[in-house]
């Protein structure tokens, strides 16, 4: 075991997969310059052919990633930040998500899009979206949001090896966090949620960076005599609804903490699944701690109050216990 930061874990995953498989390469804006600090050592090891700076042409290079994947490469496409995917939306939706299906299984798209998310840092509306729910409505895409260094490494490696398109949402509020990662090979299968803390009174499902808030809230609730079970969703599509339903069967209460906008959110989807399939276990209404349906303002104080925080989770959980 070693202590590794989230961002280092991401670098390790890419480095190991590029060493292991010649068909893996990374492209994106300023990746060879290691602008974000997540590509440390890559260009020195693999050169500019496989660590490829692109022009600012998202539709072009995301689509080029799809084409390269169709003929056997395993591209990692770096989006810089998640909302820049909007520029490439047609390639993601019409080509990447649909080609395997439309061509009757003939096309394989082993492409990984890395989509770091920055929010809560005064970058205003255009740069601060957490767009996984938007992409969740499109069949044919696997979506993950690893929330620990362990998963950042193991799930990214699994994504690169997956024969299907995977979009990985990296919450930049987690990039600096460190924890233990095993030495040697680490693969974390996609599609499994992780119970991060066991409890009996209320199930708290967290999405992406909300894990930090959920665990802090559970700690505070424990001091008040409320036992919260915290589930880190990790994989958005496919979604591990079994783990959530099992937990709710035990606790009878559900709260979902999701930093994205509330309408049509991952929190909404989980709520629907539990209302439909876990209804008779519920002892209280389902609670969602999300971001209200407005844009992210530039002003730091305005932005801060919109986003989920520990106090909001604690307050909602308390209300469920009444």
């Amino acid at each position, binding site marked *: 075991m070693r202590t590794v930061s989230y961002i280092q874990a991401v670098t390790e995953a890419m480095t190991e997969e590029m060493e292991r498989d010649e068909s893996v390469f990374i492209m994106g804006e300023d990746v060879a310059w290691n602008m974000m600090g997540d590509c440390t050592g890559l260009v020195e090891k693999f050169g500019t052919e496989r660590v490829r700076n692109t022009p600012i042409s998202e539709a072009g290079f995301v689509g080029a990633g799809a084409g390269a994947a169709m003929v056997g490469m395993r591209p990692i496409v770096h989006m810089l930040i998640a909302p820049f995917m909007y520029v490439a939306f047609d390639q993601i939706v019409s080509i990447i998500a649909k080609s395997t299906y439309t061509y009757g299984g003939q096309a394989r798209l082993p492409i990984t899009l890395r989509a770091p998310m920055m929010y809560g840092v005064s970058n205003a509306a255009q740069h601060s979206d957490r767009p996984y729910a938007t992409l969740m409505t499109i069949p044919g895409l696997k979506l993950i949001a690893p929330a620990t260094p362990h998963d950042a490494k193991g799930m990214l490696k699994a994504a690169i090896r997956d024969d299907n398109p995977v979009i990985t949402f990296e919450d930049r509020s987690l990039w600096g966090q460190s924890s233990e990662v095993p030495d040697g090979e680490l693969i974390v299968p996609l599609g499994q949620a992780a119970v991060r803390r066991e409890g009996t009174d209320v199930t708290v499902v967290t999405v992406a960076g909300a894990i930090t808030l959920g665990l802090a809230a559970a700690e505070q609730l424990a001091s008040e005599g409320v036992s919260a079970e915290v589930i880190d969703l990790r994989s958005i599509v496919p979604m591990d609804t079994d783990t959530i339903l099992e937990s709710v069967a035990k606790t009878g209460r559900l709260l979902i903490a999701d930093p994205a906008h509330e309408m049509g959110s991952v929190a909404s989807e989980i709520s629907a699944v539990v209302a439909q399939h876990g209804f008779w276990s519920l002892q209280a209404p389902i609670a969602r701690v999300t971001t209200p349906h*407005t844009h992210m303002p530039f*002003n730091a104080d305005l932005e801060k109050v919109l986003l989920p925080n520990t106090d909001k989770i604690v307050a909602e959980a308390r209300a469920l216990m009444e």
Partner: protein
Amino acid sequence: MITVDDDLLREMYRRMSRIRKFEDTTKELLLAGELYGAFHTSTGQESSILKTRNALRIHDSMVGTHRSHGHPIGKGAQLDRLLAELMGKETGVNQGKGGSMHLSDFSIGSLGETSIVGSGLPVATGAALAYKMRGDDNVSLCFFGDGASNQGTFHESLNLAAIWKLPVVYVCENNGYGELTSAKDAISVEDISIRAVGYDMPGVTVDGQDVLAVFEAVSEAVDRARRGDGPSLVETKTYRFENHAVGRLPEHYRSSEEVEYWRTERDPLALFHQVLIERGFDEQQIDDLDAAVSEEIVAAIEFARQSPAPPPEAAFTHLFSPSAG
């Protein structure tokens, strides 16, 4: 040849000085922690972005980018409400909602600065479409960087403007880099203006540090657009003195000698200062212009500091316009 009289020279210098001092001040305030957010300054590019009233009228519109503190100033905006916006205040041009990457002032015809690279080009094109459909003689001015000229929106916009003969002037500020990547490594041509050929419109490249050269090229393109003769592409070769974003990112992608060269030999303000002297201005007159701008800056900082923050409910306003119907 367009004649530039003393009044115009003075006004050009004043606006350049306002941009320079505004950027120097905001950089200081950012580093001191009074401002925040991703912060892209246009120091070094003042002459490229200057649009004096003789080239553009108030009803002409412009669209900017993430690097657009200077664009509204170049078109005549008040500094106080721009600075208030950078502080996230209610009195800011965007009422604290936009910040550095969205600084815009519709009162002087700025249709907004948009921070998704390349996203402003279709907007400027559409404004020109409206002017043409309505028979106004307004012109739409579109600012973007070298990096943006690789987006599909650049190519799509130029084609639309050409087939519809729209009154739009595309001004590409080629500062040599898109973030950390050199234009040499990212762009298929040396001069971006050559891309105009593919869309059958005039394309020129000018020295972006020479304000008179930029003024002449843009004025010619604006006149052409206003006459109904269609779009043009003007490329200004320029340089940003600061890093891509102030206080962030590594700067290992360019040499300090290169930065030093541009700062000492190719500073548009120093070059223009020289021109003013040659045209008969004395140092005192120029100092007076600078001093007046400094006073304006001091007042703007004071205004911004004194201004109230937006109330919490402001987070929910402006999602939609009030409907007239």
